[in-house]
């Protein structure tokens, strides 16, 4: 035991961006490789972060490696800026990256870290979206060995994944994959687009913004570069379908709060057991509401 050991001072304990510079450099190099090979799961060392594996450590490493004091960061989880995990992440970045602005407004953000959603409003060329990924490999459902999966990816052999879809249609008359819908990037690699709903998958295609995927626990980074083809894996004669928000009369449900009929809705029951539908993207919902109020004010 070293009785003379002195603990580091609180503020001296952690550098800007938490990770040491070598680690950030490695992540940035990996990002470059991932952009060069769209959809390829690029392995990297992945450091331990002070939050649980599975809580977004991959996304966080991307964010911390990219962020600078001229950036404005938005963090969302389940579409919301204020969900517990988003708050936690945002606080951590504020703590370790002094000088970085944070925002809830999409248009102000240069860097957006998200879990399970892509914002409703289209991103721009000046923005980077970082998605947190629990399972990077879409082939894991049909092949458990990573060594064999690597070969299948290299040869763009996704026949076994398609057989799974075939079987779904045979048994359920419908593809049962709800989220994490396998998506082919630049006509070669199929990615797991992270647990975004099918609603968000079309937003990957030809996106003006760079979209980065970080899987911390599985130690992989991959990318959909700007203006890249992203196609959900389907059969030629069966179209891809997003979530259906029509009620029993075929009417599109509206957000109970802002009235939007063009957003992904969260469904839950209130205390009287009445179904409530509300925009999952809370910033979008706020924006819609503000517009209504403005219009009503004028009227």
């Amino acid at each position, binding site marked *: 035991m070293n009785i003379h050991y002195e603990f580091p001072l609180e503020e001296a304990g952690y550098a800007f961006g938490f990770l040491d510079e070598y680690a950030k450099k490695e992540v940035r190099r990996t990002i470059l490789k991932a952009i060069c090979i769209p959809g390829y799961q690029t*392995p990297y060392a992945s450091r331990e972060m*002070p939050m649980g*594996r*599975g*809580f977004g450590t991959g996304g966080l490493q991307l964010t911390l490696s990219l962020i600078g004091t001229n950036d404005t960061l938005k963090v969302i989880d389940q579409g919301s800026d204020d969900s517990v995990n988003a708050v936690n992440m945002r606080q951590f970045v504020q703590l370790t990256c002094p000088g970085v602005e944070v925002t809830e407004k999409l248009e102000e953000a240069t860097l957006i870290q998200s879990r399970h959603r892509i914002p409703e409003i289209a991103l721009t060329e000046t923005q980077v979206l970082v998605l947190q990924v629990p399972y990077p490999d879409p082939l894991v459902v049909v092949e458990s060995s990573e060594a064999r999966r690597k070969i299948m990816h290299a040869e763009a052999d996704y026949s076994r994944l398609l057989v799974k879809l075939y079987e779904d249609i045979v048994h359920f008359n419908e593809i049962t994959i709800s*989220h994490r819908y396998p998506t082919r990037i630049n006509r070669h690699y199929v990615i797991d687009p992270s647990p975004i709903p099918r609603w968000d998958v079309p937003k990957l295609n030809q996106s003006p913004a760079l979209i980065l995927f970080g899987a911390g626990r599985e130690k992989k980074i991959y990318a959909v570069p700007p203006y890249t083809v992203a196609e959900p894996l389907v059969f030629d004669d069966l179209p891809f379908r997003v979530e*259906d928000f029509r009620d029993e009369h075929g009417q599109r449900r509206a957000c109970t709060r802002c009235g939007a009929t063009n957003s992904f809705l969260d*469904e839950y029951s209130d205390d009287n057991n009445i179904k409530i539908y509300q925009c999952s993207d809370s910033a979008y919902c706020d924006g819609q509401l503000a517009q209504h109020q403005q219009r009503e004010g004028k009227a």
Partner: protein
Amino acid sequence: MSYVAIKGGKAAIDGAAAVTEFLRGRDDSGEPLNLSAIECQLRLLTSRVVSEGGLYHPRLASLAIKQFQGDTLEAAFALRAYRSTKPRLLATPVQNSTNMRCIRRISSAFKDIPGGQMLGPNYDFTLRLLRFDLADEDPNEFRSIARKFLGALPEADLPDSFPKVLDALRAEGLLPPVAESRNEPFDITREPLVFPVPRSAALATMARAETGSLLAMAYSNMRGYGDVHPTVAELRVGYIPVMVPHPVTGEPMEAGEVLVTECEVVAMYESGKADCLPTFTLGYGACFGHNEVKAISMAILDRSLQKGMQDGPENPSEDPEFVLLHVDGVDSMGFASHYKMPHYVTFQSDMDRLRTTQGKARAADQASQMEVV
């Protein structure tokens, strides 16, 4: 407002932190835990955390144990996260464990071994009867324990190093010759595992693996899902000097020492390669701290994985991917915990699929009934 937290996440986090802290501070004794007490009196707990944390820093480990209220997974995790902030400045040359300052050294292969068996600290032959006298220990008596022990210690001239048991077996030709590895050891903190991985990557992964996970995998092999049938040639616990090159002269110098547990098992023999005679096979385990079960488990798994890498895995414990990707405590506990996070969006999407599928099935059902009518 309902369960869906549109606002209030921050308040909830702060509240949770406060109540967690409250549970620690509720202790009627009024005495905050002293780090030295954790490091010494709970030395095996500290050992486990330095080993799984992959950072030899017993004092920080004690702090982590205190901060996370005794959760070894969380404490090891905090050490790892702390380690992420530190650059890798240099690598030590290969450390020779013959130079270990042993506190314990046994072999189950031989009745006596060159240098002698040395039982040292362990619970193997103590009866697991609760010592009720420890419940209310007199501080003065407690303070005299170490003094009395040291006072009664005979003036023994313990050697600085002990020969390895395996060296004798090797000299007899019962073991394969040591393969000279020219490769740099694989650094799992700087390179991801891409299979197939070298043995050094497997050893490094297991050295900081979660003890229970490693034990479970090794136990499956011991019980019959595998056939290592090990004999512990040598298990030693002690301090190994850490040599680092001097920043100016480059000469090796001692920077300190680390407590290490090391285990070498001898397993069933296999036919020799090319013109060689058949020999026993070996398994090696080593980790920071005093963790005997972990070192033994690791040695068994090292052997089973070598077999799997050579002949193809026949059991889970022989499959490098299966073992190495599932023994890390930080990874596995993190992922198990993440299921507690909100999954509203994905569950919404799941409900959509099920409802659509049910709808189609219902429609098909009605259509077939119409036909019958």
